């Protein structure tokens, strides 16, 4: 339930890749009643360091608490509160759409417009791969929904802070 004053926010976390660290983070947030919309995690180029990107909702007070509570965890090296910096974010979605005789061309037109790719073909369905920021994924989904989305798997957001422009 989104309450007025609640905002969606992206938080980046750099953690030591030890067993259970993701469970600790997710457990911390769910235990305190904070909402996790999406979460992605993967190792970085530095051995033993994992970057986690979280999308959560809450008002400013809740978000400040979340950031502080995350900072308190022993295996967390750094928390990036993206309320305070510009950032680049991308996510990838695999979308299985109905692709009958009548609609196939329209699907391919949409794929072209959004620079997506068809990664699976069958007599009745195409599976598309599309990468972009949140807005782009939402937009293509809305269009494809009118044709008929059968299944969808999204990765959730990965984000990095923009570099300083000097």
């Amino acid at each position, binding site marked *: 339930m989104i309450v007025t004053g609640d905002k969606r926010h992206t938080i980046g976390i750099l*953690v*030591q890749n030890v*067993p*259970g660290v993701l*469970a*600790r983070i997710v*457990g*911390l947030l769910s*235990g305190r009643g904070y909402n996790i919309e999406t979460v992605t995690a993967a190792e970085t180029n530095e051995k033993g360091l994992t970057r986690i990107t979280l999308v959560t909702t809450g008002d400013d*007070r809740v978000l*400040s*608490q979340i950031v*502080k*509570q995350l*900072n*308190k*965890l*022993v*295996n*967390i*090296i750094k928390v990036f509160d993206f309320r305070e910096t510009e950032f680049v974010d991308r996510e990838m979605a695999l979308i299985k759409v109905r692709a009958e005789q009548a609609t196939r061309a329209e699907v391919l037109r949409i794929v072209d417009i959004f620079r997506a790719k068809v990664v699976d073909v069958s007599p009745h369905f195409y599976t598309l791969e599309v990468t972009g920021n949140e807005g782009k994924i939402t937009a293509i989904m809305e269009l494809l929904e009118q044709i008929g989305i059968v299944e969808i798997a999204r990765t959730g957001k990965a984000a990095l802070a923009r570099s300083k422009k000097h």
Partner: protein
Amino acid sequence: MKFTGAQILFESLKKEGVDVIFGFPGGAVLDIYHEMSKHNIRHILVRHEQGAAHMADGYARASGRVGVCLVTSGPGATNTVTGIATANMDSVPIVVFTGQVPTPLIGDDAFQEVDIIGITRPCTKHSYLVRDVNTLGTVIKEAFYLARTGRPGPIVVDLPKDVIQAHADFRYPKKVDMPGYRPTMEAHSGQVNKAFQLLKKAKAPVVFAGGGIIISESSDELARLVKLLHAPVTCSLMGLGCFPATVPDGKGGMKPNPFWLGMLGMHGTYQANMAISHADVILAVGVRFDDRVTGQISTFAPKAKIVHVDVDPTSISKNVDVDVPIVGDCKNALKQMIQLAESEPAEGLAESRSSWFEQIGQWARQHPLSYCAEGDVIKPQYVIEQIYEVSGGDAIITTEVGQHQMWTAQFFKFNRPRTLLTSGGLGTMGYGFPAAIGAQVAFPDKLVIDIAGDGSIQMNIQELSTAVCNNIPVKVAIINNTYLGLPRQWQELFYEKDYTGSCLEGPPDFVKLAEAYGAVGLRAERPEEVTPLLKKAFSIKGPVFMDFRVVTEENVYPIVPPGKSITEMLLA
């Protein structure tokens, strides 16, 4: 030279200066117990693992050192969860070693297997499952470091049986390297100065001190700063003892400390609750503005600018919006403030604040803590007062949870830190008796008294065996009203006297029970029996149960009803 995991464990404990372990064996830890016999470390065998956890906790709170307990896998580990959560809520440094099934069996629902790391994740400061014996020394060093630094807390170290049996080279690390853990101890001098300027100019200041003063061992600094600022002091339950309730009267006796307001909050004193509600500046040190203290948050201290000092940034502006947040060690922040106060002495503070102190005195006279003594029956508050008188206030007091706990906070005058050990955050019945045992182990020559209710004492009564067998001479004062007193009070005040579930029918004969365990049992049923009984009990060199038959219909006042502002106290 190759050591087994069990040997590494004991060598590491020795390096950490551990001299006592509270424990209970089982299959998963027999290798550890076999190794224990070869080392010079005291082991106290408990009768329930919950007792071991609370004993480690009581030992830690009384001494300031890290408490250690050792239990087996499965049910042994799960039995410590309440004790771990208790320590977590009150920021107590303990390390809990749990046995675990051999690593190849983990995750297969083996005999006496539980995912104790998963179960305790939300209620530990941190935890480790040791899968590689080569990391054991480092894990133990980190565990103790984490337990005692920053905001202290419980650490669980899960030890699979094959890891304990495996061999490794042992070199205890000289330092820890934890890039993700850097507690801020140094308070920001700019913030400290901002706070000091506010306090200097305040017309109606209040200092609100808590458990953080005791943990950071800064009672002396607090007393010095209070004198320089000329401000009255109140405490949370966890802070009692950080500021003396009584001071020498110059004639060889003691008098009430003129700066002491009494405890704050749901069962705090009238003058403390009124003072904080009318304050213009509050210096909050080592507290977390728990709901027992604030009452209805929207009406808490409406006129005050709040300075909040704490080592844990998550506690600052969590419940109550703060004007000057200061993250850092309380001792460090107080020292900085003292330096400022001494270099910029404020003249005439005593005069400018005299009307504030007069107002406080008026409040204290309007509604002092009181109860009606009735000739024939024992009032529970009377027992607490006599415990204070007969002990001379020179004792370590533990409590269980409920009315007796609140009366202890109100009627026993605590002057020194680490003299009240009580489960404030979790409110765990059954805490006080094992905690008293742990405290007595830390201080064999001090008078240690557990003030208990008849409900609470039955929760870990089996530890009477631990006390008797190890000659741990704790004194237990059972405030026996045959009810769960605090639920009964709430039912009387807020649930139309519906006493469902709060009557403890068929209470045991506590005197016979004590004697059955080999301890001394004493009983008082009339007021004139109380003082002689206490004197007798305190002189016995062994554990004593005292059964005080008190009246049931007695309520803790003041009480701030649920959802109300702390100025809306119900009074006696």
